[in-house]
């Protein structure tokens, strides 16, 4: 059954980019994000942040979080440094209210910006 709109949780979507030595799979990343948030904010804080990975293709991804907990989500992502011996850093590209907005505004933009300098060289 649908929740009524006023009781629905307010959410935000973070578009992020992963820089890593080797490509990661989805399961490893999800586990590490949860671990990092639990180690900083504890079980209670992590449940309030309510993170869930919407999509991840090895490079860019979208993470859902609570609207009021954007800062906490950012610091949780920023404290990830190492996943099973692979060095990792996560850069948040931007925050949006919808998945479509996050994809169009941030992820596609970075892909376009990435490909343009190569075209100029050729």
């Amino acid at each position, binding site marked *: 059954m649908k929740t009524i709109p006023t009781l629905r949780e307010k959410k935000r979507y973070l578009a992020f980019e992963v820089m890593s030595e080797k490509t990661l799979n989805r399961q490893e990343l999800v586990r590490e994000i949860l671990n990092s948030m639990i*180690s900083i904010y504890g079980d209670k804080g992590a449940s309030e942040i309510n993170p869930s990975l919407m999509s991840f293709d090895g490079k860019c991804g979208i993470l859902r979080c609570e609207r009021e907990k954007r*800062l906490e989500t*950012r*610091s949780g992502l*920023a*404290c990830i440094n190492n996943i099973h011996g692979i060095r990792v*850093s996560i*850069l*948040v590209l931007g925050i949006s209210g919808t998945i479509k907005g996050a994809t169009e505004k941030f992820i596609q933009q970075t892909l376009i910006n990435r490909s343009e300098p190569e075209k100029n060289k050729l």
Partner: protein
Amino acid sequence: MIASYILNMSLIIPPPNNRISISLDSIIKPIMSLFGSKFYDFYTHPDDAGLMAMEGKRYGYSGITVIGHDANEKTIFPEDFSIYRGIEIKAKPSRIREEIKKHRDSGHILIVKGGEEEINRAAVETEGLDILLHPLEFNNVLAKAASDNSVSLGFNLGLLIRLQGVARVRELKTMRINLNHARKYKLQLILTSDAHSIYDLRAPREMAAISSLFGMTEKEAVDAMSASPLNILRRKSLDYIQEGIEIL
């Protein structure tokens, strides 16, 4: 006939009112301007300075300080990006004063990595030091001496990124104490990432988010990455003579 009439009508319509756009700007700008300034990272030691600079520019920095690396001509640095040389002074507490005096006029950025009280005291009481990074034992006497000699207090966020568990709790505790002293004596703050490779670097917004873990506000974090580094650079410039005296 109708077409000409429409043309005339279009001429009569006044140009869009400028006042609306100005008022919108004034609403939007204060929110945007927090992260619209130039950002600097003052404590990195990369193996490949060129790669680090490229990555730093992509993350949104406009300059980094490289420690213990002689930039040779082969490394290619990106445009609109400045690289400063920093000197980290590692010496016994009794030798720190002499070392600072030796390097004071070199124009490089002087950093002492804080530790026990003797090191901190020797560093803070000498004029000419720029940054005291992450002192472990900090108290009101040292804070007052630091504000007299205009030494900035550095926070090493790399520790929070790399450590976990009990060790991170300890570092957070010392940072909280340091921040309280800095607020009381109005010290300049500096946020650094202590990056050894490109994977240790974090974007300015992420740095602000990490610094909120030990109670720093967003405004303080932005000032610590843009205003106080610029202040240090201004003091290092050739036109600067003394606080309040400057060649124009």
